Each structure stands twice: as structure tokens, then as C-alpha cells.
């Protein structure tokens, strides 16, 4: 039984599984970009037909990155990372401490990178030369050994920890995204100039979310370049809490407003009529003149309320149009589009009145993305450490060099050897350059 458990743990901790999971995540991500994600059902039915649609739908291919099996792959990767790291970390820590050369000076010539020269100078006199020549490998520590002097150079120890820093960062990023999806929310608000709201429409569904504060749009501005391309979208807003103004800001793209962990991002805008001056002409009788505010009820006659419910800057190429709805006491509400520039249009009629728009003033509605993501700081921390960890792992190398000076017949015998944890080309060049310098010193005459 214990044997079996061990083999399962071995399998979960294997790097083979890591590479397999990486390949599976890559392959499923490819599928996710080939099948358009989160489109309406009807579109998929048309694209794939009912048979394939059902198959794809069963495997969650239309929202692949949130499907159970994609999440399972990520969870397995996390588990694999944790077990791999925990199992290998002690070995890495041991390697970091490993500086003394256990085998004794005679074993130094067994290294791939080594050099042995008989020199004229005495061992003690060579010490400064050794310090200088191998200084690139770290700070030397000298000791006495077997009647000679042994210098140990070591640097870049931290590189041994690099992989663990990277793996921990990946786990932090996964954790951060998990926290964000559990405790955060993403939504949208649309506010007209002068209006105030505390209700956010959530992206996940139909229900809204009531914020503990409200946001009022004072002014929305859009600026254009001469080319016609937009240069700035700006919402000047005020945040109110318990009836008091607690913050104000200009929200532009790339510069959101954050209040109490909730951020507002400039996202879209549309033009609306602020006020509309209407002329309602009955079949017979005196025309009624009205000033209607956008989406607010206005009484036309006792028992008949009217609202401007929508606006188009250009309706089917007939120019601006306002949508009017009337709400009679009895009977269904009904309405019509009224063309502003075509007062004679036969459709400009509501509830028996012929309607003309005498004038209107426009304003803007600003669309703001609303997001609260308490996990984002964990993610940013993970982002920072993954870069530091990658640098440690791949661009630092745990270099160890030992130089042994032993009295020779007249002068000294110098033996140097070294090893590294990564970047062999770099290490071997440095070592061979140092060896050449040593070999260039004055030799012991035979």
C-alpha cells in the first residue's frame, strides 16, 4: 500500500507531468483561440450545426478557459509545482551551502575545468595573484589544508533558489486570480451628465450590485485630433457617501478612479438629449408646448404621461430622432420615433398627436467599467517575483572555484578547478582566461 502511494506521489511530482501539463495547457489555449469564446448560442448553432454544437457545449469549448477541465489542468499544475518544489528545495539548499570541497585537493584535477602548473614563486607570494585572477568567481576564503593553502571562491548562490522563486510566483498568480474571482466583481455603469448612481450592472448576470457609495457624472468630454481620431475621453466625476462628497476625479482611459477598492475605468460614451422642446399638435385644438427631460415623465394632459426614452444621432440616415413613449391610464404604453429634421414625416405621431421637435440640447452618457479585484496586488507581487526569479535562475550561476597552492620542489604547485550551475560558455571562457593568466606566470625551472 505504502509502495503504491509513493509511486502516485512520484508521478504527481514528476517533471514529465509538468511538461505534459504545459503542453496540454498550450494545446487547449490554441483551441480556445480557434473557437470564438462566449458568443450567443444561436451563432454557434449556425456555425457548427446541432451535432457538433452539443459535443462542443458538453466539453465547455465555448467558455473553455472557465471550463471545469481547464481549471483542473491549472489545479494539477499548481499541485505538481508545490510537490516538485517541496521535494527538491532541500537539495537546492544543500547545494547552496556546499562550498568546501569534500574530496581533498588531489581530486581537483578530476574536474572538467582545471589547470595545474608548477610556478617559481612561493605559495604565500602567489596568494594576491590568485585573488586577482579568480576574483570574477567571488570573494576568496583561504584555509590551510594538507600542508598547503586552499582558496574557495563562490558566488551566485542565490541562483539555486531561482526556480523556487519562479514556481512560488506562478502559485501566487494562480492564488491571486482565484481570490479575484471569488471576492471581486466586474461590472458596468452608465451615467448621464448630472446624474448619480450607486448601482452596478454585473458582467456575470442580470442582477445588479448596490455600492455603499454613489458616483455622479458632472461632465463628459471627448476630444478629437484633426484627423478625426479620438484623443481623449474624460469623465469628471464626484463620489458621494452618506450624502457627503468624499472624492472627485477626472477619469480618462489608462487612469481609473479607485475608491474603497472599487475602480472605475473610462470605457464608452454616447450622446443623449438633455432636454427636448416638443410641440404636440392635436387634430383640432391648440398645440401643446412641452419641455421634456430625458427619461423623466412629463404630463401631456391629465392622466397621460410621456417620456423621451431613447435617442439616435442618425436614425436610418434621416438625421437625429427621439423615441417618445406615452403611458395612458388605461391601455398599453406605446410610442414612436420622431424625426427631428423631418417635421412633416407621417410617422411623427403619438397617441393622436402630431409631434414636432422644436429644439433639443444634448449631453453625454458615460460608460464606465467597474471592477473590484482584491487579488490584483498578489498578482502584481507574483509578476515582480517571477521576473526576479527567472533572472536568478537563468542569468546568475552558482560558480565555485578552488585554488590549491602547495609547496613544490623550489616554488609552488598551483591547482585550480571550478564548477558552475548554469551558463557553461560564460564560465568556461572566464576559467580558461584565468588559466591562461596563471600559465603565463614565471614557471619553476626544471
Amino acid at each position, binding site marked *: 500500500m505504502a509502495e503504491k502511494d509513493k509511486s502516485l506521489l512520484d508521478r504527481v511530482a514528476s*517533471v514529465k507531468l509538468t511538461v505534459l501539463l504545459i503542453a496540454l495547457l498550450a494545446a487547449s489555449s490554441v483551441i480556445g483561440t480557434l473557437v470564438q*469564446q462566449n458568443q450567443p448560442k444561436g451563432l454557434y448553432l449556425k456555425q457548427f450545426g446541432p451535432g457538433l454544437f452539443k459535443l462542443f457545449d458538453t466539453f465547455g469549448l465555448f467558455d473553455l478557459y472557465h471550463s471545469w477541465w481547464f481549471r483542473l489542468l491549472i489545479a494539477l499544475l499548481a499541485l505538481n509545482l508545490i510537490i516538485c518544489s517541496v521535494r527538491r528545495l532541500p537539495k537546492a539548499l544543500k547545494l547552496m551551502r556546499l562550498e568546501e570541497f569534500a574530496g581533498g585537493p588531489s581530486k581537483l584535477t578530476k574536474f572538467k575545468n582545471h589547470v595545474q602548473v608548477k610556478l617559481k614563486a612561493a605559495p604565500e607570494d602567489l596568494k594576491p595573484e590568485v585573488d586577482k585572477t579568480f576574483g570574477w568567481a567571488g570573494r576568496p576564503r583561504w584555509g590551510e589544508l594538507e600542508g598547503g593553502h586552499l582558496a574557495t571562491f563562490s558566488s551566485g548562490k542565490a541562483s539555486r533558489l531561482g526556480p523556487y522563486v519562479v514556481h512560488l510566483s506562478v502559485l501566487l498568480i494562480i492564488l491571486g486570480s482565484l481570490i479575484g474571482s471569488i471576492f471581486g466583481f466586474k461590472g458596468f455603469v452608465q451615467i448621464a451628465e448630472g446624474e448619480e448612481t450607486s448601482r452596478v450592472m454585473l458582467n456575470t448576470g442580470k442582477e445588479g450590485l448596490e455600492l455603499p457609495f454613489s458616483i455622479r457624472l458632472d461632465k463628459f468630454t471627448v476630444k478629437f*485630433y484633426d484627423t478625426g481620431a479620438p*484623443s481623449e475621453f474624460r469623465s469628471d466625476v464626484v463620489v458621494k457617501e452618506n450624502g457627503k462628497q468624499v472624492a472627485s476625479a477626472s477619469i480618462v482611459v489608462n487612469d481609473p478612479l479607485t475608491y474603497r477598492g472599487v475602480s472605475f475605468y473610462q470605457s464608452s460614451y454616447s450622446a443623449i438629449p438633455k432636454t427636448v422642446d416638443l410641440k404636440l399638435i392635436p387634430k383640432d385644438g391648440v398645440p401643446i408646448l412641452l419641455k421634456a427631460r430625458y427619461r423623466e415623465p412629463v404630463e401631456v394632459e391629465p392622466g397621460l404621461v410621456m417620456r423621451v426614452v431613447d435617442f439616435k444621432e442618425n436614425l436610418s440616415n434621416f438625421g437625429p430622432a427621439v423615441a417618445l413613449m406615452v403611458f395612458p391610464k388605461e391601455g398599453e404604453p406605446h410610442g414612436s420615433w420622431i424625426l427631428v429634421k423631418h417635421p412633416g414625416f407621417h410617422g411623427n405621431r403619438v397617441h393622436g398627436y402630431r409631434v414636432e421637435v422644436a429644439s433639443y440640447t444634448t449631453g453625454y452618457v458615460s460608460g464606465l467599467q467597474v471592477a473590484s479585484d482584491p487579488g490584483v496586488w498578489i498578482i*502584481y507581487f507574483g509578476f515582480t517575483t517571477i*521576473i526576479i526569479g527567472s533572472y536568478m535562475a537563468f*542569468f546568475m550561476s552558482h560558480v565555485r572555484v578552488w585554488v590549491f597552492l602547495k609547496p613544490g620542489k623550489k616554488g609552488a604547485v598551483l591547482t585550480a578547478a571550478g564548477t558552475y550551475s548554469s551558463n557553461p*560558455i560564460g564560465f568556461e571562457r572566464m576559467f580558461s582566461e584565468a588559466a591562461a593568466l596563471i600559465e603565463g606566470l614565471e614557471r619553476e625551472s626544471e
Partner: protein
Amino acid sequence: MTSSLILSVVTFLYLGAALAYLIHVIFRWELAGKAGFFGLVLTVAAQTGAIILRWVESYRLGIGHAPLSNLYESLVFGSWAIGAIYIWVEMKYRHRALGVFPAFCAFLAMAYASFDKDMLRHIQPLVPALKSNWLIAHVIACFLGYAGFTISCGIAILYLLRAGKKESSSSGIIPGNLVLEELVYQTVLFGHLLLTVGIVTGSIWANSAWGTYWSWDPKETWSLITWLIYLALLHARIVRGWRGSKIAVISILGFASMLFTFFGVNFLLSGLHSYAS
């Protein structure tokens, strides 16, 4: 605009450098290799000047911004990155025979930028979403990374061409298989670190612009796929001990994925990165 004129000339200079390197490798002619290297240094210097000039020109137009904002400018910077990083690799490792592929890729990028008829080459003002310093960091990091992958792919191709033959066929001009293999790996390490920085800075930019650091948009996803392919290469080599042809093949696969991330997604898939097309 003077910068455009210089950049057109730079295109042909890259071709010249690529041909010189090719002659160097085929005819084992030392002088052609030197001509390739110094030609490349001259080209990158001229291109650096042109990029700075374009930056200055944008300020003269009153719409000043770093020249990293559309497909044209990113291709110019991409080819610059390939040239500059290859020069660094050649100076560091002292092998002259590896220049053919990077110089030719830099030429192709510049030729596409300079001569495609649908390319918008004039300086455009920045739309609101692109007004961010994270964008500058994002583009620079990504293209430096891409340059690393390009050079790696070139060495990987050379390795595979050479792998069938005996080591003795080495003329002294093309480095030995062990060195080639190591260089494939070292350049991937560089590319992968820079791609990591690129994805991270892009993610932070997305969060400040749209309130979401990752939205599985096709470009994001393909950059992740590329990242994962090279990640698999690193783990296979470091922990599983894969060497040689296998590593070379993954490097070429990663390069193909990188090309798809940059070009394929723009033309075949739709998403947030429509600025770059």
C-alpha cells in the same frame, strides 16, 4: 519625412549584410564575414538614428509619442531589436557564421514595413488606450524577446542542417554542435525572460486601461502559448536533460508560434490588439 527615407535604405542594408554573411558561410571567406558584421553595425546605427528622428518628427507634428504605436513602427523596432541583439551575441560569443538568419529576418520585417501597400507609414496620433508608459515597456520587452527567439531559431536551423553531418566537416567558421546547441538555449533564455516581462507589463497596462489584467483575448492567449512552448523547452532541457535536435525543433516551433502571435492573430483572429494591424 527623412526618417522614412533612411528606413527604406536600412531595408537594403539589412539585405546586404545578410548576403555578406551568406557568402562568408558558403565560401568560407573571412572578409565577407567582417563585411557582414560591420555592415550590420552600420545598419543598426542608421536605424537607431531614424527611429530617434521619427520620435522627434512626431513632436514637431504636435502629437509626440515614442515610435512604438502601430504595425509599421513595431516592425521597424522589431528588426532593430534583431540587429542589435545579434550584434551583441556575435560580440559576446565571437562566432560570425550565425548572422545569416537574423539579418535576413530583419530585412524581411523592414521590407514588409516599407513596401506593403496597405501599411500605414505616416505618424499617427495616439488613441486614448495607447497613452500609457506601460505600453512602451510592453512593446520594447516583447520585441527584444522576439529578437532573442529569432536568433535562437536561426541557430537551431543551422544545428539541424549540421547535425546529420560529421563534426569533422566543421570548417572552423561554423561553431561545433555543442556550442550551437548551447547558443540555441542561451538565446531562448534571454527571449523567455523578456517575453515574461512583456506579458507582465502588457497585463498591467490592460488592467489600468480596462480593469482586467487578463481577458483571454487571442493575442494574449497566443503570447501565453508561445511562452508555454519555450517553458516546456527549458524544463525538458534542464530537468529532463533533453539536448540537441529535440531542443532545436522546439525552438523552431516556438518561433513559429511567435510569428503567429504577431502576424497570424492580427490577420486571422480578432481581439483587443486591433491597434497593431
